[in-house]
């Protein structure tokens, strides 16, 4: 599973990344967490508000930081 964190490096993007990593380790799954920081690459997902969470090339959340529990729901 590939999890992408879209965001240009704002504070919210960092907390999204932290939450995603925590969700992955709590669930004990193997997933790669990738940061996407170039605006051009972020926009390619059609997202207008960062941070956004992409699971296997599908945008699941944008414009807010979901909690660890919410992220777990997306990773199932």
């Amino acid at each position, binding site marked *: 599973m590939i999890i992408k964190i879209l965001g240009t490096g704002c*504070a*919210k993007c960092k907390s999204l990344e932290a939450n995603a990593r925590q969700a992955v380790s709590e669930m004990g799954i193997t997933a790669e967490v990738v940061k996407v920081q170039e*605006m*051009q690459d*972020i*926009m*390619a*997902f*059609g*997202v*207008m*508000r*960062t941070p956004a969470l992409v699971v296997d090339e599908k*945008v699941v959340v*944008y*414009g*807010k930081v979901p909690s660890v529990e919410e992220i777990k729901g997306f990773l199932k």
Partner: protein
Amino acid sequence: MFIFEWLNNQLLKMEWLYVLVQKLVEGVFGLSIQDRLGGSIHFFIYDVIKIFILLSFLIFSVSYIQSFFPPERTRKILGRFNGISANILGALLGTITPFCSCSSIPLFIGFTSAGLPIGVSFSFLISSPLVDLASVLLLASIFNWRIAIAYVIVGLVLAVIGGTLISKLKMEKYVEAFVYSNKVMDLEPEELTVRDRLQFGKEQVLDIIHKVWLYVLIGVGIGAAIHNYIPEEMISAVLGQDKWYSVILATFVGVPMYADIFGTLPIAEALVGKGVGLGTALSFMMAVTALSLPSMIMLKKVVKTKLLATFFVIVTAGILIIGYTFNAFGHIFL
């Protein structure tokens, strides 16, 4: 009328706070607010507390309204209009979307790649940092309602004319190709409950205060220094009403600076207090908020130099015209 005036003075201008801080400065510090040091300390404490109270309240209310207009929805609404009405709507929607130009650029890309004319996206991009609901109420608090409303109107007119000019100049080809090649995802806006919206408002308050507090402190600090330490003759020699170049100077000093409107208001307030023309102070504010080095660098990644330069020239010219107009007719407003 009397009740309205009382509410305006107490809630918006916070006269109770003025008196309270005066008591603090005079009673606890033993300084007169007529003195330099006492006056500066009073200006600083009063303005900082006032701006933070108003800011928290305003961001909360504005965010609540904003939660009804996420960019995905704004884009859909804009797509239904053509011509100048689309520009006007773009400018109006710009007033209820993000507070800083850094977050409006992804919106610019999102709008353009969805097929909105670039002129409409630019109307949005100009009005978004320049005029927002929170800044209007702050202007009304620091100056008065007439100035606040006049500011909104000229800001919107600038956004509409700027966007329309860019449409007329047919500059679509100066947008980087990747913007058009983006797929447009029609992400369905999620349904929000009242609780979600309140939560969003709370998050926005914390987020924005966290982002702007330093600018506000610096802005009020500069304001306090201008207020009491810089001699009036010195300021009027450079920025006085009778100096024809004052607006130009204020605009070009403001352009490279990056701060948001909440940090620049106290500086404008102190300048006007020192006899600087209202137009000169507004030009400075508009230049700082609408144009800045960081937002230019971001925009450069999306549009070619020619379009960037056109955008810069149109907005700068607009700010200069607004400045001179307000200086000529400013006495009506004060």
